[in-house]
């Protein structure tokens, strides 16, 4: 039900924060910008919700004509002052409370007491106020402000969250949406900004429906929506941005502005759910209807997270039906192409919600291929092959609709009561059941803890930790192996002590085991459980909390490893008597660094001599410090358990804890936490406490947005989040800067160019402008960070975070493009680091060359640059032009300027700029000439050195030279591709040797002292090089 664009002549009341609400129509005087409109909405919704005197207004609305500019302002004007007043009054009361640092705890508290309805609006206003005042000053001091503001927002959010949640139990997820929206501050594209408003319209529209049940058709619904005062405004402007426009929004982003804009945008969104609750109380709305609205909210939420092409063609053009839960169970869907009214993620969610499965590729198991516009040809083909049923969006919707057991109307005898009754019943049921259950499960390790929760406040993770190895999820082979190793340990150990010397190293018995794997998959648990089962009564665990340096390890653990447990002396069992019943678990060995100096080395020596089994556990086995340790241990790599296994176990837990949750929701939970059992269980417990006694379905779980707590662990992931995750706001960006305050700015600077901002056209003027802005910001960030280091002024860190990370990433965020060619797959590591070290290296080379000549030693760097190319040419030219005859000239030139053989190549590199201007000169020198040149250069220098250097140094030098030469000859030989070349080289090498000898004699004639020894060596060398070349 897209509203008509013509209604844009709505009254535009100036934002309440800029001016006081004013009657009359200002739209004629002020041009309508989207920001203003949004302010309007906020203004109106605000006045409405804050004035309990006017709750009936929506009910009246059907009678009014669609557009009544004169009426609506009057209404707001009367209510606005009241609300303001109250806001001021109450804000002073509420403020201290707001500053409490633990919103989470308060959340729980607040759920117990039912808040008064007046409280809710006030919270809002505080929030609004604080954020607004911030947004004004943000322009000047954005980085500092950002922090404070977002904190306030957080606080008020959670509070408001609770209050609303309590009021309308049925839709707890709405708040979550709001939260999402709230966090979506700053750089926003128009399309994104538009969608939520649409949602509100829809929500409200659906809310209104029950009031006028006769007009159930779509057309009337539309009218209904328009009848509502505040919705009118929304309705009116949403058509401005039609979905087609979304793809090419014209609005240019002005960073500072958008922030404050966003502030205002978020307010209407926040308002709507409240509004809904008020209307709902009067209305005879049924729960199903509510659910209908839910999926429609998705577009806003999801669109941000996904690429532009996943936007639906006509978002919201179809009604989402309500079906029987799990009506799509067992069906497998593959979606291709752009769908009509739902975006891809929306459709995914819808199908998952009803128990269907989504796959990306068509196979024989696929039930339906859902076709949209521009379907992928390959999918169609495979579908043909497998004879998969094809359907489209409507088909899916129909499937859902048809599954609904009855007509929705019939199904709503007491819609309002339903949720209340639901919970009551549930509690009753529980209280009835629990005693029985308790009695029944006394022997069971897994107690039904719902009732006893108050008493037994144990964490679920501990409560449901496996006690038997059969209970361990996944990693069955590894656990089995561990078990075998432990049971056979004693015998093998004894065997190995006997036949120690004879045994080969390879099949030597490993006295320790190394378990590696990501966190939360049960490494520690399995090792403990298995050790217990294998009869090791004494399990000694040492983890990172214990001091584990060399000394303390020796003191505390050494005794264990070569002692036997006292216990065994008292046991009667002969069999047990024999064996050692202690096992040492070294947890988190990859954390043994820093304070634990020498710990790993000591551990290794312990392993060598241990008399008890040692189990080492680590997360990252590729760590450098563990390399040596790994050679002494048997390796067991634990992997993440299958998500189905985990969800199965979770369902079991839920059943035992009397928690009602959808299978789909559990799967989602497991997926979003990357199969980390520990955190899944923890989150489950949290969910349970948040949604007491309520059924948690897929959408609720999704709205909890649990994956957010899953922080990034790699710098590349952080970069990706910063540059691509549209849900991130400035606060998140600033936080991510602290992931690694050195590297993150570099990563951003390295990769920002490859991002095409989502709000601009590729290579357009705006694109380049944004790029220039981002680069300017990065450049500023660099100057600030230098100041930090120079003056040790660490107060400036937030400024670097803002200008070096947050601002450029906010400006650029969008889609990554492979601009560097075919191998440009992912974010690259900052080249400025490697280039920096190359630069330093080259400067050292340059200085070395410069300082070794009388002519150049006093030159400045810039002057040396003039020198270098000619210097290079004067040495290279004879080699290239005159070949072997030029060698002498080249060497003379080099000696004159004190250039060594290595320097020559370094200079060559320094003077070469790849690309059009070609490559290194030295490469064009004939290999044969090169060899001869090297040889004669070395020989000459040996002679020169001999006069100057002491005997010892001389010897060293000789050795070095010999090695050099051999290497060079060898390299040259490798270069040869065919036999002919080889032969030629051989001949020339021999010839060169002769030449060189003659030359050498000549060169050394004046230096009579140095005649004898080099000659000898030359012959020796000749022999060696001959040998080598012959071998080749």
């Amino acid at each position, binding site marked *: 039900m897209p509203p008509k664009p013509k209604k844009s002549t709505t009254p535009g009341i100036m934002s309440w924060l800029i001016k006081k609400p004013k009657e009359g129509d200002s739209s004629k005087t002020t041009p309508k910008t989207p920001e203003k409109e949004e302010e309007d909405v906020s203004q109106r919704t605000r006045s409405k919700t804050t004035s309990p005197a006017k709750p009936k207004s929506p009910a009246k609305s059907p009678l009014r004509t669609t557009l009544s500019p004169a009426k609506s302002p009057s209404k707001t004007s009367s209510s606005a002052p009241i609300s303001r007043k109250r806001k001021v009054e109450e804000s002073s009361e509420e403020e201290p409370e707001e500053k409490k640092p633990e919103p989470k705890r308060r959340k729980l508290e607040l759920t117990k007491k039912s808040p008064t309805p007046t409280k809710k609006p006030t919270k809002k206003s505080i929030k609004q106020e604080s954020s607004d005042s911030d947004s004004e000053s943000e322009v000047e001091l954005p980085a500092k402000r950002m922090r404070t503001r977002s904190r306030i927002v957080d606080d008020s959010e959670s509070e408001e969250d609770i209050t609303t949640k309590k009021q309308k139990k049925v839709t707890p997820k709405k708040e979550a949406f709001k939260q999402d929206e709230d966090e979506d501050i700053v750089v926003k594209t128009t399309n994104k900004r538009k969608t939520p408003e649409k949602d509100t319209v829809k929500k409200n529209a659906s809310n209104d429906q029950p009031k006028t049940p006769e007009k159930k058709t779509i057309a009337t619904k539309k009218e209904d929506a328009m009848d509502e005062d505040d919705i009118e405004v929304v309705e009116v402007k949403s058509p401005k941005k039609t979905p087609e426009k979304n793809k090419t929004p014209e609005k240019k982003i002005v960073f500072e502005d958008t922030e404050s804009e966003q502030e205002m945008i978020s307010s209407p969104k926040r308002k709507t759910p409240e509004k809904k609750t008020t209307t709902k109380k009067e209305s005879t709305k049924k729960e199903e209807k509510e659910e209908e609205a839910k999926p429609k909210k998705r577009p806003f939420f999801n669109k941000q997270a996904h690429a532009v092409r996943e936007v639906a063609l006509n978002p919201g053009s179809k009604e989402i039906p309500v079906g029987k839960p799990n009506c799509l169970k067992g069906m497998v869907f593959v979606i291709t192409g752009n769908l009509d009214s739902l975006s891809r993620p929306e459709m995914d969610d819808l199908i998952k919600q009803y128990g269907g499965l989504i796959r990306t590729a068509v196979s024989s198991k696929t039930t339906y291929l859902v076709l949209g516009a521009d379907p992928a040809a390959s999918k169609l083909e495979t579908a043909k092959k497998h004879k998969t049923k094809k359907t489209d969006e409507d088909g899916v919707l129909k499937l859902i609709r048809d599954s609904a057991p009855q007509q929705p109307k019939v199904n709503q005898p007491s819609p309002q009561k339903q949720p209340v009754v639901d919970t009551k019943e549930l509690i009753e049921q529980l209280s009835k059941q629990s005693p029985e259950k308790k009695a029944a499960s006394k022997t069971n390790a897994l107690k039904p803890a719902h009732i006893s929760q108050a008493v037994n406040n144990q964490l679920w993770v501990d409560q449901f930790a496996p006690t038997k190895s059969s209970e361990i999820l996944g990693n069955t082979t590894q656990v089995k192996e561990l078990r075998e190793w432990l049971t056979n340990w004693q015998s093998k150990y004894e065997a190995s002590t006997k036949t120690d010397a004879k045994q080969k190293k390879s099949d030597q018995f490993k006295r320790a085991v190394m378990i590696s794997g990501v966190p939360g998959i049960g490494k520690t648990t399995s090792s403990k459980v298995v050790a217990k089962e294998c009869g090791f009564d004494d399990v000694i665990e040492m983890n990172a909390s214990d001091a584990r340096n060399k000394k303390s390890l020796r003191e505390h653990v050494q005794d264990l490893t070569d002692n036997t447990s006292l216990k065994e002396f008292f046991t009667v069992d002969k069999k047990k008597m024999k064996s050692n019943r202690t096992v040492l678990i070294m947890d988190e060995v990859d954390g043994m660094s820093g304070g634990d100096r020498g710990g790993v080395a000591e551990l290794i020596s312990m392993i060598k001599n241990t008399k008890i089994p040692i189990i080492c556990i680590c997360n990252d086995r590729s760590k450098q410090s563990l390399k040596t340790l790994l050679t002494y241990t048997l390796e067991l790599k634990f992997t993440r358990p299958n998500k189905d296994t985990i969800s199965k176990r979770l369902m079991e837990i839920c059943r035992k804890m009397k928690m009602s949750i959808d299978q789909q929701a559990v799967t989602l939970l497991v997926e979003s936490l990357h199969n980390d059992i520990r955190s899944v269980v923890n989150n489950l417990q949290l969910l349970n406490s948040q949604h007491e006694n309520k059924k948690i379905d897929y959408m609720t779980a999704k709205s909890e947005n649990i994956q957010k707590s899953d922080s990034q662990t790699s710098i590349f992931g952080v970069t990706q989040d910063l540059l691509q995750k549209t849900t991130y706001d400035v606060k998140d960006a600033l936080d991510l800067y602290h992931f690694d305050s050195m590297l993150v700015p570099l990563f951003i600077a390295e990769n920002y160019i490859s991002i095409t901002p989502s709000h601009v056209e590729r290579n357009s003027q705006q694109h380049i402008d944004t790029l220039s802005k981002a680069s300017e910001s990065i*450049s500023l960030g660099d100057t600030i960070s230098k100041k930090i280091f120079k003056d040790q002024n660490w107060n400036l860190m937030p400024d670097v975070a803002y200008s070096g990370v947050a601002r450029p990433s906010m400006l650029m965020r969008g889609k990554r493009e492979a601009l560097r060619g075919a191998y440009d797959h992912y974010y690259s590591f900052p080249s400025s680091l490697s280039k920096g070290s190359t630069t330093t290296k080259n400067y050292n080379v340059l200085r070395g060359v410069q300082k070794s000549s009388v002519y150049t030693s006093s030159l400045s760097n810039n002057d040396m640059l003039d020198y270098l190319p000619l210097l290079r040419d004067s040495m290279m030219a004879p080699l290239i032009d005159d070949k072997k005859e030029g060698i002498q000239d080249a060497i003379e030139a080099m000696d004159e300027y004190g250039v060594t053989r290595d320097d020559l190549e370094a200079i060559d590199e320094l003077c070469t700029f790849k690309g059009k201007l070609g490559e290194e000169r030295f490469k064009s020198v004939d290999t044969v000439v090169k060899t001869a040149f090297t040889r004669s250069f070395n020989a000459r220098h040996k002679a020169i050195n001999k006069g100057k250097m002491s005997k010892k140094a001389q010897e060293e030098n000789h050795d070095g030279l010999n090695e050099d030469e051999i290497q060079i000859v060898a390299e040259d030989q490798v270069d040869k591709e065919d036999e002919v070349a080889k032969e030629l080289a051989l001949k020339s090498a021999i010839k060169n040797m002769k030449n060189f000898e003659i030359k050498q004699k000549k060169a050394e004639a004046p230096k009579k002292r140095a005649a004898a020894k080099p000659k000898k060596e030359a012959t020796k060398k000749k022999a060696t090089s001959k040998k080598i070349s012959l071998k080749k």
Partner: protein
Amino acid sequence: MVLLVDKYRPKSFDKMDIHKDMSQQLKNIVNTGDFPHLLFYGPSGAGKKTRVMALLKEVYGVKAEKTKLENKEIKVGSQLSKSITVTTLSSPCHIEINPSDSGNYDRYVIGTLLKEIAQSAPLDQSAERNFKVVIINEVDLLSREAQQALRRTMEKYVKTCRLVLMATSISKILSPIKSRCLCIRVPAPTSEEISTVLQKVAKQEVFNLPKAFCDEISEKSEGNLRRALLMLEASKAEKYPFTAGQKARLPEWERFIADIAKEIMEDQSPKRLLEIREKYYQLITNCIPPELILQKLANYLIVVVDYDVKHQVSHWSAFYEHRLKCGSRPIFHLEAFTAKIMSVYKRYVKLLSFVNNL
């Protein structure tokens, strides 16, 4: 084989072709037997060093020419725990140091070396001059602390040593130092003067240098005689005999920068920006100072762009030169400059086509 520039460096005042009056003045100064601390300043390639060496020869005779390179270990750091190597060029009567090579440790170099030299008076008391000369290069690059260290030493050891300071600009030298020295400005030679020198060298080397080509070299050398001679030799190596239309051969890095300017004009896109970043990296890793890159690039751009954009180019190059000085990673600033120019130029081109269409 020695490069022409070194081969034909005049060894005495009489052989100098440019700034003859100055040479005469210097000669007069040293003829009195003693001379004050000297501060030579002027652009590079103007002949500062040549004059100083000639001056030394005038004072000490041939023994000033017997120079050798020497590496000296100097203890640095607050605990004097670290040691760095400093290369000095010295003769029996003088020593030449480049303290600015030592970066932050330059004050230790100044302190240690100067004291060492100044405290030991020449053994040969019978010698004509019982003071040594210390030549300090690139004084303008010395840190403030090092200059302060210099200030006291200059007065304290004035009996045993004379300082000859070299700088391209005196704006960064402390005024107390300036006031203790006789400041001598060596201006860059005019292109006519350079041409005469070039012709003279050509004559001595016996090759033919057409006037047009000679003029082009002296024009392109920007008043830097050293560069002019190097260019002459490079061009000769590239192509001889010289032809009429031959261009003077610029160093490769300069041509490389010219290419970058061209590329900016051709296309303004992220892809191009990435390509140019790579080129900047090549320049930087090849030891071309970033400030020089920016300066040259701006020069090329200003020539190429239309009149309306010229002031933008100069403004932004100045802006980012400042950033370069303040920052630690030159690539960011060069890149930001490029992006800015791209943005400005793209807008201009768009506007131009818009106007043309009207």
